[in-house]
């Protein structure tokens, strides 16, 4: 690191005279290790708080307690998760997450663009902060809001007599509608910085070359935004896949979801060994999430050059 400050920055004379002092030797040599010191607490924290539970779960998922009370290795837990109701819940979660994440990604781009280009700074702030609150605080209040809107005793259900027309919130599509409510804000939040990063010069350059608005989007903006869209989609998939509070708070939910299955297997009064199946299901979830994120990393590395 070279300290080449232009003289204009240093206005006061005091600083100038102090600048004449020779650079203390050795300080630069000490820095690399000091740099790692800043990183180490984070790594240690992750290793303990993330690594330990995952290791414990992995160990539990491949063992079981036999009749004598000893712990033995088994593949029965994982086999159970790929069978019957457990497999159904796993597929249900994947289907719901993929669908809602895709829809939310498509819907959010025009929405985020409309917000970013808005002349009203107030609108932008209101929407972004509301998005932050919904996307993060979401879960339980969201379930309550939709239950009281479209649930069995909901306001709109009663007002329009939806129950007679066969409407039920506690179906796959009902849950999808609820999930979009926190996925769209999450995507808007993800896209806003990227849209802010689209330099006006790029649009001007495109216009100077007689590009139409569509051509600008097709050949300039969209390719630049693509990594963000992609990583946003993956983020949404992950959020939807791991969402539990919404489904748990929507009492009467008959949709098989893997998170609900894990929680009931862990907390419910079930047979011995059932909790280890829950751990195996948890490992399944981790594997799915890891696969998706791995795919995203590979794709993203190719294209994320412009916005950083």
């Amino acid at each position: 690191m070279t300290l080449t400050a232009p003289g204009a920055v240093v206005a006061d004379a005091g600083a100038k005279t102090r600048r004449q002092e020779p650079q203390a030797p050795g300080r630069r040599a000490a820095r690399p290790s000091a740099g790692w010191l800043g990183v180490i607490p984070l790594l240690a924290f992750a290793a303990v708080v993330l690594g330990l539970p995952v290791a414990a779960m992995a160990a539990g998922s491949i063992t079981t307690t036999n009749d004598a009370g000893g712990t033995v290795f088994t593949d029965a837990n994982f086999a159970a998760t790929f069978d019957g109701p457990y497999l159904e819940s796993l597929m249900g979660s994947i289907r719901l997450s993929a669908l809602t994440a895709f829809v939310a990604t498509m819907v959010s781009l025009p929405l985020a663009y409309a917000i970013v280009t808005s002349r009203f700074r107030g609108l932008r702030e209101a929407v972004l902060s509301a998005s932050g609150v919904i996307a993060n605080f979401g879960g339980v209040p969201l379930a309550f809001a939709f239950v009281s809107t479209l649930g069995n005793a909901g306001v709109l259900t009663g007002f329009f007599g939806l129950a007679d027309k066969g409407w039920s919130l506690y179906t796959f599509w009902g849950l999808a509608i609820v999930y979009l409510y926190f996925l769209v804000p999450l995507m808007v939040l993800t896209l806003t910085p990227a849209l802010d990063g689209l330099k006006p010069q790029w649009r001007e350059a495109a216009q100077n070359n007689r590009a139409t608005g569509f051509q600008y989007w097709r050949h300039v903006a969209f390719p630049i935004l693509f990594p963000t869209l992609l990583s946003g989609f993956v983020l949404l998939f992950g959020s939807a896949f791991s969402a539990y509070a919404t489904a748990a708070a929507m009492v009467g939910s008959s949709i098989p979801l893997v998170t609900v299955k894990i929680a009931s297997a862990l907390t419910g009064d079930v047979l011995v060994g059932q909790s280890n199946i829950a751990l195996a299901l948890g490992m399944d979830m981790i594997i799915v999430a890891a696969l998706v994120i791995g795919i995203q990393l590979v794709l993203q590395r190719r294209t994320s050059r412009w916005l950083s």
Partner: protein
Amino acid sequence: MALLTAPRGPRVRRTAPEARLGRTIALAPAVVYFLVPLLCALAFTVGLGDPRQKPSLDAYTAIFTTDGLAQSLGLTLLLAGATIILVFGLLLPALLAVRLVAPRAKALVAVVCMLPLVVPAVALGAGITTVLRWATDWLYDTPGFPLLASLQQPAFPVILVLAYALMALPLAYTTLEAGLNAIEVKVLVEAARSCRASWFRTLFLVILPNLRDALLNTAFLTIAMVLGEYAVSALLGFQPFAVWTVAISGSHAQLSVAVSMVGLIGTWLILLAVAKLGRSKASKETS
């Protein structure tokens, strides 16, 4: 030093009539979709949903008299504060170190910060439950037992702070990275250092003020996350705010919806106020 604040805000300012129309088309359905459930929930809490019921504000007056609410809310806010401190304490040194002195650690830090995304909250809860069970299974006569027990004090469950901080990492990392990307950390530091600012002054008067938006956002999103967190706390058997509202939803449906809506809208208003405060302060400094 405050003059080093980089310009921010929307760069695209273009309002052709068709653009305005497009904006309306994009925003109008979204406004309906996002407002209707909130309005209906509010209508539900005052009893407008059920024709047999007389509209009243009972659900809201009950907020102040119901047992357990103040307790769970207090616990949750305490946890949120501790979580924010922990997240900043872990992330800021790491991110600055990566930018200034250890660029080779960048990929590692990114991976570690995004790793919690791979572990869904329910799975994390299941894993933590398993670890905590070790206390009674194997560690009964070792120092591990009091350690694990001390993590689970109902008055202040440290284990939840650890779990929340882990779950907040990806979001905090992305927000802070975006904030750091928007400013030239290295140039700012070099400029400040060449003005003979100490590392302390450089950090607190140059870097952090430039990151104010990102820091505030991270802090409040973390609070929102902690207020809404359900899975881990429910699996571990604690009863912070979100778990409490679900627990009472069976017997006090209107009250639980009312409390949730107050929490949701209240958090949003606080976030808005903070954004406004931050902005007026920034404009005062730059003028």
